[in-house]
Protein backbone atom coordinates (compact mmCIF):
# COMPACT_ATOMS: atom_id res chain seq x y z
CA UNK A 1 0.00 0.00 0.00
CA UNK A 2 2.85 2.34 0.83
CA UNK A 3 4.28 1.45 -2.56
CA UNK A 4 1.45 2.96 -4.56
CA UNK A 5 0.84 5.92 -2.25
CA UNK A 6 3.33 8.43 -3.79
CA UNK A 7 2.20 7.67 -7.30
CA UNK A 8 -1.47 7.80 -6.46
CA UNK A 9 -1.03 11.06 -4.53
CA UNK A 10 0.79 12.79 -7.40
CA UNK A 11 -1.64 11.32 -9.87
CA UNK A 12 -4.69 12.46 -7.99
CA UNK A 13 -3.35 15.93 -7.29
CA UNK A 14 -1.76 16.74 -10.64
CA UNK A 15 -3.71 14.64 -13.07
CA UNK A 16 -7.20 13.66 -12.00
CA UNK A 17 -7.92 16.88 -10.11
CA UNK A 18 -6.75 19.23 -12.90
CA UNK A 19 -8.77 17.25 -15.42
CA UNK A 20 -11.93 17.74 -13.36
CA UNK A 21 -11.04 21.36 -12.73
CA UNK A 22 -10.55 21.88 -16.46
CA UNK A 23 -14.10 20.79 -17.21
CA UNK A 24 -15.42 22.83 -14.29
CA UNK A 25 -13.60 26.04 -15.31
CA UNK A 26 -14.80 25.68 -18.88
CA UNK A 27 -18.28 26.66 -17.63
CA UNK A 28 -17.02 29.85 -15.94
CA UNK A 29 -15.50 33.17 -16.91
CA UNK A 30 -12.51 32.75 -14.57
CA UNK A 31 -9.38 34.84 -15.10
CA UNK A 32 -5.96 33.18 -14.86
CA UNK A 33 -5.68 33.66 -11.10
CA UNK A 34 -8.89 33.91 -9.10
CA UNK A 35 -12.45 32.68 -9.19
CA UNK A 36 -15.00 33.28 -11.89
CA UNK A 37 -18.77 33.08 -12.20
CA UNK A 38 -20.70 30.18 -13.59
CA UNK A 39 -21.87 31.13 -17.06
CA UNK A 40 -23.29 27.86 -18.29
CA UNK A 41 -22.67 26.95 -21.90
CA UNK A 42 -21.72 30.47 -22.97
CA UNK A 43 -18.08 29.50 -23.57
CA UNK A 44 -19.09 26.59 -25.74
CA UNK A 45 -21.41 28.76 -27.82
CA UNK A 46 -18.54 31.19 -28.24
CA UNK A 47 -16.19 28.35 -29.20
CA UNK A 48 -18.43 27.23 -32.05
CA UNK A 49 -18.62 30.73 -33.48
CA UNK A 50 -14.94 31.56 -32.83
CA UNK A 51 -13.01 32.26 -36.04
CA UNK A 52 -9.59 31.94 -34.41
CA UNK A 53 -10.56 28.57 -32.95
CA UNK A 54 -11.59 27.43 -36.41
CA UNK A 55 -8.26 28.62 -37.78
CA UNK A 56 -6.50 26.72 -34.99
CA UNK A 57 -8.40 23.52 -35.78
CA UNK A 58 -7.65 23.95 -39.48
CA UNK A 59 -3.96 24.72 -38.91
CA UNK A 60 -3.56 21.78 -36.55
CA UNK A 61 -5.18 19.41 -39.08
CA UNK A 62 -3.08 20.90 -41.88
CA UNK A 63 0.06 20.45 -39.78
CA UNK A 64 -0.89 16.85 -38.94
CA UNK A 65 -1.39 16.04 -42.63
CA UNK A 66 1.87 17.73 -43.59
CA UNK A 67 3.91 15.87 -40.98
CA UNK A 68 2.36 12.47 -40.36
CA UNK A 69 2.08 10.94 -43.83
CA UNK A 70 5.22 12.37 -45.49
CA UNK A 71 7.16 11.85 -42.26
CA UNK A 72 6.19 8.19 -41.96
CA UNK A 73 6.93 7.55 -45.64
CA UNK A 74 10.31 9.26 -45.34
CA UNK A 75 11.07 7.22 -42.22
CA UNK A 76 10.24 3.98 -44.06
CA UNK A 77 12.48 4.90 -47.01
CA UNK A 78 15.32 5.92 -44.68
CA UNK A 79 14.94 2.73 -42.63
CA UNK A 80 15.07 0.61 -45.81
CA UNK A 81 18.20 2.46 -46.88
CA UNK A 82 19.87 2.19 -43.47
CA UNK A 83 18.90 -1.47 -43.13
CA UNK A 84 20.98 -2.39 -46.20
CA UNK A 85 24.16 -1.02 -44.66
CA UNK A 86 26.39 -2.92 -42.28
CA UNK A 87 28.79 -2.30 -39.42
CA UNK A 88 30.09 1.15 -38.66
CA UNK A 89 28.65 2.72 -41.83
CA UNK A 90 25.22 1.78 -40.55
CA UNK A 91 25.87 3.20 -37.07
CA UNK A 92 27.21 6.46 -38.49
CA UNK A 93 24.35 6.91 -40.96
CA UNK A 94 21.74 6.00 -38.35
CA UNK A 95 23.27 8.45 -35.86
CA UNK A 96 23.08 11.20 -38.51
CA UNK A 97 19.37 10.57 -38.98
CA UNK A 98 18.62 10.08 -35.30
CA UNK A 99 20.63 12.82 -33.60
CA UNK A 100 18.14 15.68 -34.21
CA UNK A 101 15.45 13.75 -32.32
CA UNK A 102 17.17 13.96 -28.95
CA UNK A 103 17.80 17.73 -29.11
CA UNK A 104 15.64 20.20 -27.17
CA UNK A 105 13.04 21.98 -29.27
CA UNK A 106 14.59 25.38 -28.65
CA UNK A 107 17.90 24.19 -30.10
CA UNK A 108 16.08 22.93 -33.19
CA UNK A 109 14.27 26.26 -33.38
CA UNK A 110 17.47 28.29 -33.19
CA UNK A 111 19.24 26.11 -35.78
CA UNK A 112 16.40 26.47 -38.28
CA UNK A 113 15.87 30.12 -37.64
CA UNK A 114 19.49 30.53 -38.66
CA UNK A 115 19.04 28.24 -41.68
CA UNK A 116 16.05 30.30 -42.90
CA UNK A 117 17.35 33.74 -41.90
CA UNK A 118 16.17 36.29 -44.44
CA UNK A 119 19.58 37.86 -45.00
CA UNK A 120 22.15 35.21 -44.17
CA UNK A 121 20.32 31.87 -44.00
CA UNK A 122 21.59 29.27 -46.42
CA UNK A 123 18.07 27.97 -47.14
CA UNK A 124 17.57 31.24 -49.01
CA UNK A 125 20.02 29.93 -51.64
CA UNK A 126 17.43 27.24 -52.36
CA UNK A 127 14.38 29.49 -52.04
CA UNK A 128 15.67 32.37 -54.15
CA UNK A 129 16.20 30.48 -57.43
CA UNK A 130 12.88 28.66 -56.99
CA UNK A 131 10.65 31.63 -56.25
CA UNK A 132 12.71 34.52 -57.56
CA UNK A 133 12.93 36.26 -54.21
CA UNK A 134 14.10 35.75 -50.66
CA UNK A 135 11.23 34.81 -48.39
CA UNK A 136 10.82 35.40 -44.69
CA UNK A 137 9.13 32.04 -44.22
CA UNK A 138 8.03 32.56 -40.60
CA UNK A 139 6.15 35.75 -41.54
CA UNK A 140 4.28 34.35 -44.55
CA UNK A 141 1.23 32.32 -43.49
CA UNK A 142 1.30 30.25 -46.69
CA UNK A 143 4.92 29.23 -46.03
CA UNK A 144 4.72 28.90 -42.28
CA UNK A 145 3.01 25.53 -41.83
CA UNK A 146 4.85 23.63 -44.60
CA UNK A 147 8.22 24.85 -43.30
CA UNK A 148 7.30 24.17 -39.65
CA UNK A 149 6.28 20.68 -40.81
CA UNK A 150 9.62 20.25 -42.61
CA UNK A 151 11.52 21.18 -39.46
CA UNK A 152 9.32 18.88 -37.37
CA UNK A 153 9.88 15.91 -39.69
CA UNK A 154 13.62 16.61 -39.59
CA UNK A 155 13.50 16.79 -35.80
CA UNK A 156 11.25 13.86 -34.88
CA UNK A 157 11.76 11.32 -37.65
CA UNK A 158 14.45 9.40 -35.77
CA UNK A 159 11.71 7.86 -33.65
CA UNK A 160 9.79 6.34 -36.58
CA UNK A 161 13.06 5.28 -38.26
CA UNK A 162 13.96 3.22 -35.19
CA UNK A 163 10.55 1.55 -35.12
CA UNK A 164 10.77 0.69 -38.82
CA UNK A 165 14.33 -0.65 -38.43
CA UNK A 166 13.20 -2.93 -35.60
CA UNK A 167 10.32 -4.11 -37.80
CA UNK A 168 12.63 -4.77 -40.76
CA UNK A 169 15.03 -6.77 -38.60
CA UNK A 170 12.16 -8.96 -37.47
CA UNK A 171 11.51 -10.10 -41.04
CA UNK A 172 13.25 -13.43 -41.46
CA UNK A 173 16.08 -13.31 -44.00
CA UNK A 174 15.07 -16.78 -45.18
CA UNK A 175 12.05 -15.23 -46.89
CA UNK A 176 14.31 -13.05 -49.03
CA UNK A 177 16.66 -15.95 -49.75
CA UNK A 178 13.75 -18.07 -50.91
CA UNK A 179 12.46 -15.22 -53.04
CA UNK A 180 15.87 -14.76 -54.65
CA UNK A 181 16.03 -18.42 -55.58
CA UNK A 182 12.63 -18.05 -57.18
CA UNK A 183 14.06 -15.15 -59.17
CA UNK A 184 12.02 -12.36 -57.59
CA UNK A 185 13.24 -8.86 -58.40
CA UNK A 186 14.02 -6.33 -55.72
CA UNK A 187 10.78 -4.51 -56.35
CA UNK A 188 8.80 -7.75 -56.15
CA UNK A 189 10.59 -8.61 -52.91
CA UNK A 190 9.54 -5.25 -51.51
CA UNK A 191 5.89 -5.40 -52.56
CA UNK A 192 5.38 -9.10 -51.76
CA UNK A 193 7.45 -9.49 -48.57
CA UNK A 194 8.58 -6.24 -46.98
CA UNK A 195 5.48 -4.11 -47.44
CA UNK A 196 2.88 -6.59 -46.07
CA UNK A 197 5.10 -7.52 -43.13
CA UNK A 198 6.01 -3.92 -42.28
CA UNK A 199 2.42 -2.67 -42.56
CA UNK A 200 1.60 -3.14 -38.83
CA UNK A 201 4.63 -1.02 -37.91
CA UNK A 202 3.45 1.58 -40.42
CA UNK A 203 0.06 1.73 -38.72
CA UNK A 204 1.76 2.05 -35.33
CA UNK A 205 3.98 4.91 -36.57
CA UNK A 206 1.08 6.71 -38.25
CA UNK A 207 -1.13 6.61 -35.15
CA UNK A 208 1.64 7.57 -32.70
CA UNK A 209 2.66 10.49 -34.91
CA UNK A 210 -0.96 11.53 -35.44
CA UNK A 211 -1.67 11.84 -31.73
CA UNK A 212 1.71 13.47 -31.05
CA UNK A 213 1.28 16.11 -33.75
CA UNK A 214 -2.28 16.98 -32.68
CA UNK A 215 -0.64 18.33 -29.51
CA UNK A 216 1.82 20.49 -31.42
CA UNK A 217 2.85 23.67 -29.65
CA UNK A 218 6.55 24.30 -29.11
CA UNK A 219 7.90 24.81 -32.62
CA UNK A 220 4.86 26.65 -33.92
CA UNK A 221 4.84 28.97 -30.92
CA UNK A 222 8.57 29.71 -31.14
CA UNK A 223 8.59 30.38 -34.87
CA UNK A 224 5.48 32.56 -34.63
CA UNK A 225 6.90 34.95 -32.01
CA UNK A 226 6.60 38.45 -33.44
CA UNK A 227 4.53 37.30 -36.40
CA UNK A 228 0.82 37.36 -37.12
CA UNK A 229 0.03 34.84 -34.42
CA UNK A 230 -3.69 34.50 -35.14
CA UNK A 231 -3.08 33.21 -38.65
CA UNK A 232 -0.64 30.48 -37.64
CA UNK A 233 -2.45 29.51 -34.43
CA UNK A 234 -2.64 25.84 -33.42
CA UNK A 235 -4.87 24.32 -30.72
CA UNK A 236 -2.50 24.11 -27.75
CA UNK A 237 -1.19 27.55 -28.63
CA UNK A 238 -4.74 28.90 -28.48
CA UNK A 239 -5.13 27.50 -24.95
CA UNK A 240 -1.89 29.24 -24.01
CA UNK A 241 -2.94 32.43 -25.78
CA UNK A 242 -6.34 32.66 -24.07
CA UNK A 243 -5.05 31.84 -20.60
CA UNK A 244 -1.68 33.56 -20.43
CA UNK A 245 -2.00 36.40 -22.94
CA UNK A 246 -5.70 37.27 -22.61
CA UNK A 247 -6.02 36.24 -18.94
CA UNK A 248 -9.08 34.17 -19.68
CA UNK A 249 -8.77 30.75 -18.02
CA UNK A 250 -12.41 29.80 -18.37
CA UNK A 251 -12.43 30.09 -22.13
CA UNK A 252 -8.93 28.59 -22.40
CA UNK A 253 -10.21 25.52 -20.61
CA UNK A 254 -13.14 25.33 -23.02
CA UNK A 255 -10.59 25.12 -25.84
CA UNK A 256 -8.69 22.54 -23.74
CA UNK A 257 -11.84 20.43 -23.45
CA UNK A 258 -12.12 20.63 -27.24
CA UNK A 259 -8.55 19.40 -27.65
CA UNK A 260 -9.16 16.74 -25.03
CA UNK A 261 -12.16 15.36 -26.91
CA UNK A 262 -10.33 15.38 -30.26
CA UNK A 263 -7.29 13.55 -28.85
CA UNK A 264 -9.40 10.97 -27.04
CA UNK A 265 -11.43 10.23 -30.17
CA UNK A 266 -8.22 9.62 -32.11
CA UNK A 267 -6.74 7.58 -29.25
CA UNK A 268 -9.74 5.27 -29.27
CA UNK A 269 -9.35 4.90 -33.03
CA UNK A 270 -5.66 4.08 -32.47
CA UNK A 271 -6.56 1.53 -29.82
CA UNK A 272 -9.03 -0.09 -32.22
CA UNK A 273 -6.46 -0.13 -35.01
CA UNK A 274 -3.85 -1.76 -32.77
CA UNK A 275 -6.35 -4.29 -31.46
CA UNK A 276 -7.37 -5.18 -35.01
CA UNK A 277 -3.70 -5.74 -35.72
CA UNK A 278 -3.33 -7.96 -32.67
CA UNK A 279 -6.28 -10.12 -33.71
CA UNK A 280 -5.10 -10.69 -37.24
Amino acid at each position, binding site marked *: *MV*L*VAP*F*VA*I*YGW*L*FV*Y*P*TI*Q*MVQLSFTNAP*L*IGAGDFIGLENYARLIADKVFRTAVWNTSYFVILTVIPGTLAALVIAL*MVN*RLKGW*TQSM*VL*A*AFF*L*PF*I*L*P*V*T*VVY*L*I*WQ*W*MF*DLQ*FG*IMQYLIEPLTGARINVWRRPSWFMPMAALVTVWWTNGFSI*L*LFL*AGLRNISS*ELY*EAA*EIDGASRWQQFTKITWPLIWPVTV*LCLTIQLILQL*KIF*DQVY*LFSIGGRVNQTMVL*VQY*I*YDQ*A*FVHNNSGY*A*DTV*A*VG*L*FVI*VIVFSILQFQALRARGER
Partner: protein
Amino acid sequence: MTTAPMAVEQISSAQKRFIRYFDLGALILTLLTVAFAVIWAFPLYWALVTTFKPEDEVVRPFIELWPEHFTISGYIYVLTHSRIGYWYVNSVIVSCAVTVLVVFMGACCGYAISQLRFPGRTLLWWTILASFMVPIQALIVNHFVIMAGVRLLNTHLGVILPQLIAPVIVIVYKQFFDSVPRDFREAAVMDGANDFQLLFRIFLPMNWGVTTALAIITFIGAWNAFLWPFLATKTEPMMTITVGITEVQDTFGVQYARVLAGAIMAGLPVALVYLIFQRRVTQAIMLSAGIKG
Protein backbone atom coordinates in the same frame (compact mmCIF):
# COMPACT_ATOMS: atom_id res chain seq x y z
CA MET B 1 20.92 -19.00 -39.40
CA THR B 2 21.32 -22.68 -39.96
CA THR B 3 20.33 -24.09 -43.30
CA ALA B 4 21.11 -27.42 -44.93
CA PRO B 5 24.48 -27.48 -46.75
CA MET B 6 22.84 -28.02 -50.11
CA ALA B 7 20.60 -25.03 -49.70
CA VAL B 8 23.62 -22.91 -48.78
CA GLU B 9 25.33 -23.88 -52.02
CA GLN B 10 22.29 -22.98 -54.03
CA ILE B 11 21.89 -19.68 -52.29
CA SER B 12 25.50 -18.70 -52.63
CA SER B 13 25.54 -19.36 -56.36
CA ALA B 14 22.28 -17.52 -56.77
CA GLN B 15 23.63 -14.71 -54.65
CA LYS B 16 26.84 -14.51 -56.67
CA ARG B 17 24.91 -14.00 -59.87
CA PHE B 18 22.68 -11.58 -58.07
CA ILE B 19 25.56 -9.61 -56.60
CA ARG B 20 27.42 -9.36 -59.91
CA TYR B 21 24.27 -8.11 -61.56
CA PHE B 22 23.33 -5.63 -58.89
CA ASP B 23 26.77 -4.59 -57.65
CA LEU B 24 26.69 -1.20 -59.31
CA GLY B 25 23.11 -0.61 -58.22
CA ALA B 26 23.97 -1.48 -54.62
CA LEU B 27 26.97 0.83 -54.64
CA ILE B 28 24.90 3.71 -55.98
CA LEU B 29 22.23 3.05 -53.36
CA THR B 30 24.83 3.10 -50.59
CA LEU B 31 26.31 6.34 -51.87
CA LEU B 32 22.82 7.87 -52.10
CA THR B 33 22.12 6.81 -48.51
CA VAL B 34 25.35 8.34 -47.26
CA ALA B 35 24.70 11.53 -49.24
CA PHE B 36 21.19 11.78 -47.80
CA ALA B 37 22.54 11.25 -44.28
CA VAL B 38 25.07 14.05 -44.84
CA ILE B 39 22.31 16.40 -46.02
CA TRP B 40 20.15 15.39 -43.04
CA ALA B 41 22.92 16.12 -40.55
CA PHE B 42 24.11 19.23 -42.35
CA PRO B 43 22.01 21.74 -40.32
CA LEU B 44 23.68 20.39 -37.17
CA TYR B 45 27.13 20.79 -38.67
CA TRP B 46 26.29 24.20 -40.07
CA ALA B 47 25.08 25.43 -36.68
CA LEU B 48 28.17 24.01 -34.96
CA VAL B 49 30.63 25.53 -37.39
CA THR B 50 28.88 28.90 -37.22
CA THR B 51 29.57 29.09 -33.49
CA PHE B 52 33.32 29.01 -34.16
CA LYS B 53 33.25 31.93 -36.59
CA PRO B 54 33.71 35.59 -35.68
CA GLU B 55 30.44 37.51 -36.22
CA ASP B 56 31.71 39.27 -39.36
CA GLU B 57 32.43 35.89 -40.99
CA VAL B 58 29.03 34.54 -39.98
CA VAL B 59 27.24 37.07 -42.17
CA ARG B 60 29.43 36.64 -45.26
CA PRO B 61 27.25 35.73 -48.24
CA PHE B 62 28.95 32.42 -49.08
CA ILE B 63 28.79 28.92 -47.71
CA GLU B 64 32.11 28.59 -45.94
CA LEU B 65 32.33 25.13 -44.47
CA TRP B 66 35.22 25.98 -42.16
CA PRO B 67 35.89 29.23 -40.26
CA GLU B 68 38.71 31.34 -41.67
CA HIS B 69 39.55 32.59 -38.18
CA PHE B 70 38.67 29.95 -35.63
CA THR B 71 37.32 31.54 -32.43
CA ILE B 72 35.40 30.58 -29.32
CA SER B 73 34.41 34.16 -28.54
CA GLY B 74 30.74 33.27 -29.08
CA TYR B 75 30.90 30.75 -26.24
CA ILE B 76 32.85 33.10 -23.99
CA TYR B 77 30.29 35.83 -24.62
CA VAL B 78 27.36 33.59 -23.67
CA LEU B 79 29.17 32.30 -20.59
CA THR B 80 29.98 35.80 -19.36
CA HIS B 81 26.92 37.76 -20.52
CA SER B 82 24.00 35.44 -19.77
CA ARG B 83 22.70 33.43 -16.86
CA ILE B 84 23.70 30.17 -18.53
CA GLY B 85 25.38 28.94 -15.33
CA TYR B 86 22.08 29.23 -13.46
CA TRP B 87 20.20 27.59 -16.32
CA TYR B 88 22.58 24.64 -16.35
CA VAL B 89 22.25 24.14 -12.59
CA ASN B 90 18.44 24.43 -12.82
CA SER B 91 18.28 21.96 -15.67
CA VAL B 92 20.48 19.47 -13.84
CA ILE B 93 18.42 19.77 -10.62
CA VAL B 94 15.07 19.50 -12.40
CA SER B 95 16.04 16.70 -14.80
CA CYS B 96 17.71 14.58 -12.12
CA ALA B 97 14.82 15.05 -9.68
CA VAL B 98 12.24 14.20 -12.35
CA THR B 99 14.22 11.12 -13.43
CA VAL B 100 14.70 9.75 -9.91
CA LEU B 101 11.13 10.40 -8.82
CA VAL B 102 9.46 9.16 -11.99
CA VAL B 103 11.48 5.94 -12.11
CA PHE B 104 11.13 5.31 -8.37
CA MET B 105 7.37 5.91 -8.28
CA GLY B 106 6.88 4.00 -11.51
CA ALA B 107 8.81 0.99 -10.21
CA CYS B 108 6.93 0.95 -6.88
CA CYS B 109 3.56 1.32 -8.51
CA GLY B 110 4.34 -1.16 -11.28
CA TYR B 111 5.51 -3.67 -8.67
CA ALA B 112 2.39 -3.25 -6.56
CA ILE B 113 0.04 -3.64 -9.52
CA SER B 114 1.96 -6.60 -10.85
CA GLN B 115 2.61 -8.56 -7.63
CA LEU B 116 0.18 -7.47 -4.94
CA ARG B 117 -3.55 -7.80 -4.61
CA PHE B 118 -5.13 -4.76 -2.97
CA PRO B 119 -8.52 -3.07 -3.17
CA GLY B 120 -8.75 -0.67 -6.07
CA ARG B 121 -5.95 -2.36 -8.00
CA THR B 122 -8.00 -2.92 -11.15
CA LEU B 123 -9.41 0.58 -11.00
CA LEU B 124 -5.90 2.04 -10.66
CA TRP B 125 -4.61 -0.02 -13.57
CA TRP B 126 -7.45 1.08 -15.85
CA THR B 127 -7.00 4.71 -14.81
CA ILE B 128 -3.33 4.50 -15.75
CA LEU B 129 -4.11 2.88 -19.10
CA ALA B 130 -6.80 5.44 -19.84
CA SER B 131 -4.57 8.37 -18.87
CA PHE B 132 -2.33 7.43 -21.77
CA MET B 133 -4.90 9.14 -23.95
CA VAL B 134 -5.13 12.39 -22.05
CA PRO B 135 -3.17 15.25 -23.59
CA ILE B 136 -1.11 16.74 -20.73
CA GLN B 137 -0.88 19.95 -22.77
CA ALA B 138 -4.61 20.47 -22.19
CA LEU B 139 -3.91 20.71 -18.45
CA ILE B 140 -1.40 23.58 -18.56
CA VAL B 141 -3.87 26.18 -17.37
CA ASN B 142 -4.92 24.07 -14.39
CA HIS B 143 -1.37 23.11 -13.50
CA PHE B 144 -0.60 26.81 -13.46
CA VAL B 145 -3.60 27.57 -11.25
CA ILE B 146 -2.73 24.74 -8.84
CA MET B 147 0.95 25.69 -8.63
CA ALA B 148 0.01 29.32 -8.10
CA GLY B 149 -2.36 28.18 -5.33
CA VAL B 150 0.44 26.49 -3.38
CA ARG B 151 2.89 29.28 -4.26
CA LEU B 152 5.29 27.03 -6.12
CA LEU B 153 5.48 29.02 -9.36
CA ASN B 154 9.02 30.02 -10.25
CA THR B 155 10.53 27.39 -7.94
CA HIS B 156 12.31 24.15 -8.77
CA LEU B 157 9.58 22.09 -7.12
CA GLY B 158 6.94 23.85 -9.20
CA VAL B 159 8.81 23.03 -12.40
CA ILE B 160 9.32 19.41 -11.32
CA LEU B 161 5.89 18.38 -10.00
CA PRO B 162 3.70 18.51 -13.15
CA GLN B 163 6.40 16.62 -15.06
CA LEU B 164 5.96 13.58 -12.80
CA ILE B 165 2.90 12.29 -14.66
CA ALA B 166 4.39 9.35 -16.55
CA PRO B 167 1.94 6.45 -16.88
CA VAL B 168 4.09 4.75 -19.48
CA ILE B 169 6.81 3.97 -16.89
CA VAL B 170 4.30 2.14 -14.69
CA ILE B 171 2.99 0.19 -17.66
CA VAL B 172 6.47 -0.89 -18.77
CA TYR B 173 7.46 -1.93 -15.24
CA LYS B 174 4.26 -3.88 -14.74
CA GLN B 175 4.86 -5.79 -17.96
CA PHE B 176 8.41 -6.68 -16.98
CA PHE B 177 7.55 -7.60 -13.38
CA ASP B 178 4.70 -9.77 -14.67
CA SER B 179 7.21 -11.94 -16.48
CA VAL B 180 9.27 -12.62 -13.33
CA PRO B 181 8.47 -16.21 -12.23
CA ARG B 182 6.08 -16.43 -9.26
CA ASP B 183 8.47 -18.74 -7.36
CA PHE B 184 10.95 -15.93 -6.72
CA ARG B 185 8.48 -13.91 -4.73
CA GLU B 186 7.01 -16.87 -2.91
CA ALA B 187 10.44 -18.18 -1.87
CA ALA B 188 11.53 -14.75 -0.67
CA VAL B 189 8.29 -14.18 1.25
CA MET B 190 8.89 -17.53 2.99
CA ASP B 191 12.28 -16.24 4.08
CA GLY B 192 10.54 -13.26 5.64
CA ALA B 193 11.41 -10.57 3.09
CA ASN B 194 9.05 -7.61 2.86
CA ASP B 195 7.93 -6.00 -0.36
CA PHE B 196 10.48 -3.19 -0.26
CA GLN B 197 13.32 -5.70 0.02
CA LEU B 198 11.76 -7.80 -2.72
CA LEU B 199 11.48 -4.84 -5.06
CA PHE B 200 14.96 -3.46 -4.48
CA ARG B 201 16.86 -6.75 -4.00
CA ILE B 202 15.17 -8.95 -6.60
CA PHE B 203 12.79 -7.29 -9.01
CA LEU B 204 14.74 -4.14 -9.84
CA PRO B 205 18.18 -5.81 -10.15
CA MET B 206 16.64 -8.43 -12.43
CA ASN B 207 15.38 -5.67 -14.71
CA TRP B 208 18.38 -3.37 -14.40
CA GLY B 209 18.61 -2.82 -18.16
CA VAL B 210 15.01 -1.62 -18.35
CA THR B 211 15.57 0.76 -15.45
CA THR B 212 18.65 2.27 -17.10
CA ALA B 213 16.81 2.67 -20.38
CA LEU B 214 13.78 4.31 -18.74
CA ALA B 215 15.98 6.58 -16.62
CA ILE B 216 17.94 7.78 -19.66
CA ILE B 217 14.86 8.50 -21.75
CA THR B 218 13.16 10.25 -18.81
CA PHE B 219 16.26 12.39 -18.27
CA ILE B 220 16.40 13.37 -21.94
CA GLY B 221 12.68 14.14 -21.89
CA ALA B 222 12.96 16.29 -18.77
CA TRP B 223 16.02 18.13 -20.07
CA ASN B 224 14.19 18.88 -23.33
CA ALA B 225 10.83 19.80 -21.78
CA PHE B 226 9.79 23.23 -22.96
CA LEU B 227 6.12 24.08 -22.46
CA TRP B 228 5.74 23.65 -18.69
CA PRO B 229 9.15 25.04 -17.61
CA PHE B 230 8.47 27.98 -19.93
CA LEU B 231 5.15 28.70 -18.20
CA ALA B 232 6.34 28.02 -14.66
CA THR B 233 9.50 30.13 -14.66
CA LYS B 234 9.20 33.85 -14.88
CA THR B 235 12.63 35.15 -13.84
CA GLU B 236 15.83 34.39 -15.71
CA PRO B 237 17.73 32.82 -12.79
CA MET B 238 14.99 30.17 -12.43
CA MET B 239 14.79 29.09 -16.08
CA THR B 240 16.00 25.74 -17.34
CA ILE B 241 18.52 25.86 -20.17
CA THR B 242 15.96 24.73 -22.74
CA VAL B 243 13.87 27.81 -21.97
CA GLY B 244 16.82 30.08 -21.25
CA ILE B 245 18.58 29.92 -24.59
CA THR B 246 15.68 31.73 -26.26
CA GLU B 247 16.44 34.63 -23.92
CA VAL B 248 19.98 34.76 -25.31
CA GLN B 249 18.37 35.62 -28.58
CA ASP B 250 16.25 38.38 -27.09
CA THR B 251 19.23 40.13 -25.55
CA PHE B 252 21.67 39.59 -28.39
CA GLY B 253 19.49 40.21 -31.47
CA VAL B 254 20.79 38.47 -34.57
CA GLN B 255 24.32 37.70 -33.36
CA TYR B 256 24.08 34.15 -34.60
CA ALA B 257 27.47 32.87 -33.42
CA ARG B 258 26.50 33.71 -29.83
CA VAL B 259 22.92 32.52 -30.09
CA LEU B 260 23.95 29.20 -31.57
CA ALA B 261 26.79 28.80 -29.08
CA GLY B 262 24.10 28.88 -26.38
CA ALA B 263 22.06 26.33 -28.34
CA ILE B 264 25.05 24.00 -28.72
CA MET B 265 25.75 24.18 -25.00
CA ALA B 266 22.09 23.35 -24.26
CA GLY B 267 22.03 20.39 -26.64
CA LEU B 268 25.46 18.98 -25.77
CA PRO B 269 24.52 17.03 -22.61
CA VAL B 270 21.66 15.11 -24.26
CA ALA B 271 23.69 14.55 -27.42
CA LEU B 272 26.48 13.05 -25.28
CA VAL B 273 24.04 10.92 -23.29
CA TYR B 274 22.70 9.58 -26.58
CA LEU B 275 26.10 8.88 -28.10
CA ILE B 276 27.28 7.07 -24.96
CA PHE B 277 24.10 5.09 -24.32
CA GLN B 278 22.94 4.62 -27.92
CA ARG B 279 21.73 1.07 -27.39
CA ARG B 280 19.79 1.93 -24.23
CA VAL B 281 18.12 4.93 -25.86
CA THR B 282 17.00 2.73 -28.75
CA GLN B 283 15.64 0.16 -26.29
CA ALA B 284 13.79 2.85 -24.33
CA ILE B 285 12.16 4.18 -27.47
CA MET B 286 10.95 0.71 -28.38
CA LEU B 287 9.58 0.28 -24.84
CA SER B 288 7.72 3.58 -24.94
CA ALA B 289 6.14 2.62 -28.26
CA GLY B 290 4.83 -0.58 -26.67
CA ILE B 291 7.37 -2.93 -28.25
CA LYS B 292 9.01 -5.08 -25.61
CA GLY B 293 12.62 -5.23 -26.79
